[in-house]
């Protein structure tokens, strides 16, 4: 039962990653692309981590999965911020206010 639920969550997470990738390739400018990418990172990874956690046996694995999720999420958010910040300061036609 847990396995099926876990697989379903991982599947949903994959959908978010695919959608994020499509958005990254199709959206017109860097901020829309970042929007698509950070959704994939944030939600997709959270769903996959949750799915894997349901299949894990042992508290040690659960803690490790939680730590991986936390640090990848923080790093992803920081990266998105840094890219947007750099783009806002250097690209022409982007208002800096």
């Amino acid at each position, binding site marked *: 039962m847990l396995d099926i639920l876990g697989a379903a969550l991982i599947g949903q997470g994959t959908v978010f990653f695919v959608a994020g990738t499509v958005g990254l390739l199709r959206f017109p400018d860097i901020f829309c692309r970042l929007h698509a990418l950070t959704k994939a990172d944030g939600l997709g990874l959270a769903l996959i981590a949750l799915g894997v956690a349901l299949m894990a046996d042992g508290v040690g694995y659960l803690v490790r999965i939680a*730590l991986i999720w936390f*640090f990848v999420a*923080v*790093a992803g958010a*920081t990266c998105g*911020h*840094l890219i947007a*910040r750099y783009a806002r*300061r*250097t*690209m*022409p036609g982007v208002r800096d206010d």
Partner: protein
Amino acid sequence: MTDPILIFDLLLAAAVVALAVASLSVRDLFVAIVLFITFGLLSALAWVRLAAPDVALAEAAIGTGVTGALLLKTLHHLRYVTGTLNRPEAFSVTPAAPVPAPVLWANAAFCGLITLGLAVAFLGAPRSGPGFDALVAEALPQSGVEHPVTAVLLSFRAYDTLMEVVVLLAAVIGVWQIERGLSDAPAPVLGEVFQGFARLTLPAIVVVGTYLLWKGAEAPGGAFQGGAVLAAVGLLLLLSRLYVPQPSHRGVARWAFVLGTGVFAGVALLVAGGGRVAFEYPPEHAKTLILLIEGLVTISIAVTLAALFHGREPVALRTDGGRG
């Protein structure tokens, strides 16, 4: 019905080759670096699939993480020198001058020779057989550690590892000599969010790096992986400006560079002085000696990689705040 994991492996192999070709052929330097980093991550995954987690860790930490950071830092420097830093055209910066044809051909010839050598070695190797697994497993109790890879790296084959540490030392000496007179591109200002990120992750990276080093005695991990992860601490400190290198730190840095090599060679000489072959550690002290060497080599690797990222040796600050 084909095994789904086989399809995954084939896709992975195709992706690794495709990324390598793309990284070499693309004109934009930044895109080339990003492709190279992706290539490294997928290579690490390939090593996992080949049941070589030690190599995967090294590839991910050194081959991808630290090398990627070094390449990006070099690009930053190049953009500073060519005056395209923080300018719109920097988004599509291409090499200022094309690589001369003789250099291209010489590189191609050397790469061809290496590929040829690998092919000869691969075709000449026995197709199936036990390999060295049995020999290593048999000798493992004498090494003082429980992980075969660590036993090979620091006991059975320690000369190679010593030379790898020496190579790193030579690299940092070279950089400090050559970059003495070059202009120093200003470090990018990354803002408060990055500062907070650095503060949050720094303690975690220290724990992970130390864990990798300690775990190396019985499971995948060890000095090079741990050192590369700890070097990330140096990178974050430098990028977030929580640490600014000062000229007065040069002495400490020099000691840290040679610490690993010095202790490694010193232990070998001491062991050899006791009527044994170099690196034939006395069994009762083997684990202590290996951990001592690994610990100090880790410190050296971490400091050296961080210094390579910083580039030139720290110079005196000018009164106006810029570096002289």
